């Protein structure tokens, strides 16, 4: 499904990685490992099409993502370091807007249910600026519940989360894989998905 061929990427004059090839199929999960600055985020951003790789190509269902463009974006979800939530808006508004941008229109009830499952019951209507860092992250991660993307690209999904939330994210990832979804992620914390082998990609 997702195939990376001889990818090379550099930031400034510094070559981060080269000759990187891998494939990811339905129901598979891959963890990108490496020291700080080894190019994990750059790899994920290349997979999103933000960064133009120096060499190589990224193939989705047999076609280059540059050519697929919107067709590819309809099938993927990216959660990066930045939460993409607005301080002035409530959790509910934020979730409905971010889901809307990814092409899914949510009713108020669907959004409420997703936020409650993320452990934000009673805080759905508060402006997100009064929430803690971890709660804001939960608002951002609520998108995992309300999308039908096939490929999830998660950059440090567990940052700022407590133990309960980490368990929930692991469960969501397991459900997604059971639906034949695909996940590629980075993390510095252990992320264990029961009964599924996590493929490893080491950039260092």
């Amino acid at each position: 499904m997702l195939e990376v061929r001889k990818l090379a990427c550099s930031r400034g004059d510094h070559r981060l990685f080269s000759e990187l090839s891998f494939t990811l199929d339905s129901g598979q999960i891959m963890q990108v490992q490496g020291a700080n600055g080894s190019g994990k985020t750059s790899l994920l951003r290349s997979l999103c099409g933000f960064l133009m790789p120096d060499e190589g190509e990224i193939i989705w269902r047999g076609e280059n993502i540059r050519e697929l463009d919107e067709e590819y974006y309809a099938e993927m979800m990216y959660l990066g370091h930045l939460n993409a939530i607005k301080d002035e808006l409530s959790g509910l508004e934020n979730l409905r807007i971010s889901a809307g941008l990814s092409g899914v229109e949510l009713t108020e009830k669907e959004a409420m249910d997703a936020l409650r499952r993320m452990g934000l019951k009673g805080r759905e209507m508060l402006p997100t600026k009064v929430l803690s860092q971890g709660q804001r992250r939960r608002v951002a991660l609520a998108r995992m519940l309300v999308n039908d993307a096939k490929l999830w690209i998660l950059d440090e999904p567990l940052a700022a989360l407590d133990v309960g939330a980490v368990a929930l994210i692991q469960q969501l990832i397991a459900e997604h894989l059971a639906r034949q979804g695909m996940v590629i992620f980075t993390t510095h914390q252990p992320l264990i998905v029961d009964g599924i082998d996590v493929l490893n990609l080491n950039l260092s």
Partner: protein
Amino acid sequence: MKKSTMFGLLMLVVRRDLILAMRRRADVLTTLIFFVMVVSLFPLGVGPEMAMLRKMAPGVLWVAALLSSMLSLGRLFSADYLDGTLEQMMLAPQSLSMLVLGKMAAHWVVSGFPLVLMAPVLGLQFDMTGEALVVLIIGLLLGTPILSMVGAIGAALTLGLRGGGVLLSLLVLPLCIPVLIFATGAVDAVTSGLNITAHLSLLGAFFVMALVFTPWVTAQALRISME
């Protein structure tokens, strides 16, 4: 869960930006007050000679509109860029140009349209005649959206740069000169009893051209800025 259409996405962006503007009213008001201040300073500075004020009114109003729209352009994409929303917009399953068009429209409603509403009141300070005011407003209605649209290209190109605000003005202001010339020219024409259709048709043509090309150009500029 329902799939959103291209038009639905456009309206979503417009609505979102308008809600955000309403929650950050200070930003909107500063632009408008700046416009009122600059325009009001001229009669104080050059003295109360009616004939001269009447002659310079359209130019002063338009230059003030240009400058105040520069003030708000810096914020057009920067907040979304900093909090990651812009990344998500690029990953939207619809064309980025559509989303950009939505942001342009919201920007005009928030920072262009209030200027149009304010202009007749300010025009009275300059003793403008009724028909001159009408033409001025038509010119502003056609011209201020062009400022939002052309300005968006500059805002996208200077995204994430330090001191981007000044660079933005240097990039965008020269591109707005034709709008300035024909919009003020129309008011001059009507006061001297000439036909205004040529001026307004040209403004209309600029508007249509901007509507067709600027969203696409801005989307490309945003992709470059994100790398």
